[in-house]
């Protein structure tokens, strides 16, 4: 119930921002539209404590940007220099994330980080398979991901 309302308000805001007109009428219109759409597609799953940890989000954002830049530079360097340093491999990575949303968030962020790409999630949602460009040590890679990205992300989501 609350989730629906939140989603609704969020969509209304997106609407207003998209249209760029901060008029009362536009809020109403946006609310009505998103209400209609939500009614149309009714998503069943309920989720608790939707977003509470704003600071965690901000910190995660900076962390992610840092990772992004670092890895991008690495790839860029590799691409424009004549020799290739890549040591690719597909790694099975056990998940702590459980819900679909958690998994999706996690995988998306892993993929967005250069050098790593999610290929698939196992049917039982226990592991993901990650393609890694610079794989020096499999165990170290897994550990680093566990304590870095996944932990921070789950802190936000749970």
């Amino acid at each position, binding site marked *: 119930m609350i989730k629906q309302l939140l989603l609704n308000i969020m*969509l209304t805001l997106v609407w207003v921002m998209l*249209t760029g007109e901060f008029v009362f009428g536009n809020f109403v219109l946006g609310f009505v539209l998103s209400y209609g*759409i939500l009614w149309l597609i009714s998503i069943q799953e309920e989720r608790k404590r939707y977003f509470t940890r704003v600071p965690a989000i901000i910190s995660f954002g900076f962390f992610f940007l840092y990772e992004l830049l670092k890895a991008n530079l690495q790839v860029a360097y590799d691409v424009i220099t004549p020799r290739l340093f890549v040591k690719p491999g597909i790694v099975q990575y056990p998940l702590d994330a459980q819900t679909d949303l958690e998994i999706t968030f996690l*995988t998306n962020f892993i993929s967005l980080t250069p050098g790593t790409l999610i290929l698939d999630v196992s*049917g039982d949602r226990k592991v993901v398979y990650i393609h890694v460009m610079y794989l020096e040590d499999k165990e170290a890679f897994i550990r680093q991901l566990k304590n870095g990205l996944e932990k921070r992300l789950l802190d936000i989501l749970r």
Partner: protein
Amino acid sequence: MKSIILKTASTYLLPLLLLFAVFILLRGHYNPGGGFVGGLIASIAFVLHAFAHGLVETKKMLRFVPSACIPVGLAISLISGFVPMAIGRPFMSGEWLSVQVPIIGSIGTPLFFDIGVFLVVIGITLTILFTISDGIL
């Protein structure tokens, strides 16, 4: 296709895309967009959902049979054309109300016409795609 990631993504993309579709529809008179593109985007949203969740799920989620949009949309467009005739002007003359609404601008028969187009496009795209993918998605 059994992908949790795609499923989740499409679940959240769907309302966004639909909202966007309506946005594109309504602003068409002032900016690029309009009933066609709006309708196409809305249908793409559903098609994406169908790819992720399977056709059966998508149909279950929809509160209407997509093909029903066709006659309804056609009827809306046609009626918006007939309205001016009722007051003695040629078929499809633009008739405008004096109120102004944000984004949309003036409310008039062309707007309803475009809404009809929007519905028809959703109806036909979904009918075609759902019919073809019946049993394979």
